[in-house]
């Protein structure tokens, strides 16, 4: 069963995962949706996207600049942003820039060491899909995301910040 959780209007639910995430040494399957590393996408992405109707996503590692994808974003079904360790906070910046600077509207998926305790931060930075590493299901995820009634910053999720609530 897929462990992919998708968040829609603050409610998390399991959804089918049609993508296969490929390591650079893996052969590309004949058919089906795939997620490639940034470097592999830059080498092989064009051919894949134009040769058949499958969807393609790109996996961004913390050391990679998400801006490198700007020109390709309209063609990507998803961007998977990797957390090699849950403590590595660079993924939050990557997600925010995807949403707020590069105006990416497709799926931004958290992969790697993805834990429910960080769910709130992820959602605020623009993640909308998650592959939890701690076995958290949709209920726990929905709870974690809705834990705080107020937020102090404007961020990628469009929630009104405290200062906007005060003047509303």
């Amino acid at each position, binding site marked *: 069963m897929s462990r992919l959780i998708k968040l829609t209007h603050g409610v998390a639910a399991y959804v089918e995962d049609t993508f296969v995430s490929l390591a650079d040494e893996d052969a590309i399957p004949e058919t089906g949706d795939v997620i490639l590393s940034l470097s592999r996408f830059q080498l092989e992405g064009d051919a894949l996207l134009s040769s058949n109707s499958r969807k393609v996503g790109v996996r961004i590692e913390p050391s990679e600049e998400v801006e490198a994808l700007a020109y390709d974003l309209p063609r990507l079904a998803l961007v998977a942003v990797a957390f090699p360790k849950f*403590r590595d*906070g*660079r993924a939050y910046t990557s997600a925010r820039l995807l949403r707020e600077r590069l105006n990416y509207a497709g799926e931004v998926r958290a992969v790697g060491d993805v834990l429910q305790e960080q769910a709130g931060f*992820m959602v605020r930075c623009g993640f909308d899909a998650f592959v939890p590493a*701690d076995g958290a299901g949709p209920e726990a995820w929905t709870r974690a995301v809705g834990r*705080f*009634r107020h*937020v102090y910053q404007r961020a990628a999720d469009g929630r009104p910040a405290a200062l906007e609530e*005060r003047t509303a």
Partner: protein
Amino acid sequence: MYQYDAIDREFLVDRSNEFRGQVQRRLAGELTEDQFKPLRLMNGLYLQLHAYMLRVAIPYGSLNPAQMRRLAWIARTYDKGYGHMTTRQNIQFNWVKLKDAPDILDALAQVDLHAIQTSGNCIRNTTSDPYAGATAEEVDDPRVWCEVIRQWSTLHPEFSYLPRKFKIAVTASARDRTAAKVHDIGLMLRRARDGSLGFEVIVGGGQGRTPHVGPTIKEHLPVGRLLSYLEAVLRVYNRHGRRDNIYKARIKILVAALGAEEFGRQVEEEWAKIDAARADLPDTELARIRGAFAATPFETLPAVSEPFEAARAASPALQRFVRNNVKPHKKPGYAIVEISLKAQGQTPGDATADQLDVVADLAERYGLNDVRVTHAQNLVLPHVKLDDLPAVHAALAAADLATANIDLASDIIACPGLDYCALANARAIGVAQDIAAKFADEDRAETVGELKIKISGCINACGHHHVAHIGILGVDKKGEEFYQLSLGGSGAEDASIGKILGPALPADKVAGAIDTLVEAYLGLRNGEERFLDTYRRVGLEPFKEAVYVQAD
């Protein structure tokens, strides 16, 4: 003072509930210690040598009497009857049980206090001038900007898992009482020639293993652009700060590696891409926050108080207290009163629950409900009428809180050291007490004058030894505690890093060596010159000779 509204209060309730759930999941084994550690740290909870330590945030070092009393109650109920003030204006409780921590956070939240981000690799509690709103030196009230940063940095979604901890200080006086130049970001409020208010932005100062006085990367940041600029600095750091080595992960290492100019250029480049309309606060919100601090209900008083003048003429003790602990206030008829937590034999920075209650009472009765914590681990009543000074002094004296030694040799900063801390190599408290005892003669201490002695029990430098006039660092030599002395540091506006004097000394030689240094200074000084200025004039050698010749 800033008043929390329903939003701020509900936020603290939600935070407390979140942590209660996390503790339950940890106790049930659903979270590993590795997963739980950053969560508890971001709620101020450390695992120390003997117990958990809870560090409670005191935003910009400012407390009201109800909050003081709650801290006293926590000290009595969950600790051994005292709390410890830190060099970042917070308070620590050293004997906390994990299972009690959620209840303590609930009790704190009821008086608008919390432990959010007092530890962890996130933006820590912002520190400020303990004389804010009271000193005539300031060009603006720095608390306004601290409160702006408090809200912005609280559970910041992008900047809660930084490469390392991140500390910001804000000051608005030419005399810096915040150690701004040894912070990750120091913000110094200034007025430009055209009268506009801006920040000098200092980035990449710090202490620890690799001490740096931070370079200025922007001379005049218009105040209204503060949050977008901070966002740019933090984003450059979050993306490019080192994560492979905990000792090289602070922003000072990145700034030093790139050079201040290149780092500043990267910040400018990022700043230009940020949507200012979304990132910066609207003027109306800035005005709302400023309004909360502008409303201090001062009375119109004569500049001279007859009852006070009569009382000080009659009491040498009050006179001495006034000389050392009482500072000028911006309003006629008022004074700033420093309360030393460095009495002879006391652990520097510790206050008992009863003492906290006394200070709360005094703040309520005589101090416009305002108390501050200083980075030197003392307390301040920022707004006391001159008329009331004799009564305040008498009440402080009755609670053993009238030690007249602010900035003198016995006003020593010390970390908890090996008596409490899991990181320490050596004790700090005992050494501080031994040194203070050398200056128990108050006349002698006053003759010596301003002398900032600071002790750290390990290289992490929580006791600020690098920026002490005389710094003392505890080191471990084959299982024995030794102490390395350094001279000439300063954490103030004339910031500098101290220079190591010579080989480390055993514990029983430290206080004597300090005494020797002071005697050497008294022989060398010109007129009223401070120890630091004499050192800067004559250099290390005469001091080195005095200490090591005698040691041979």
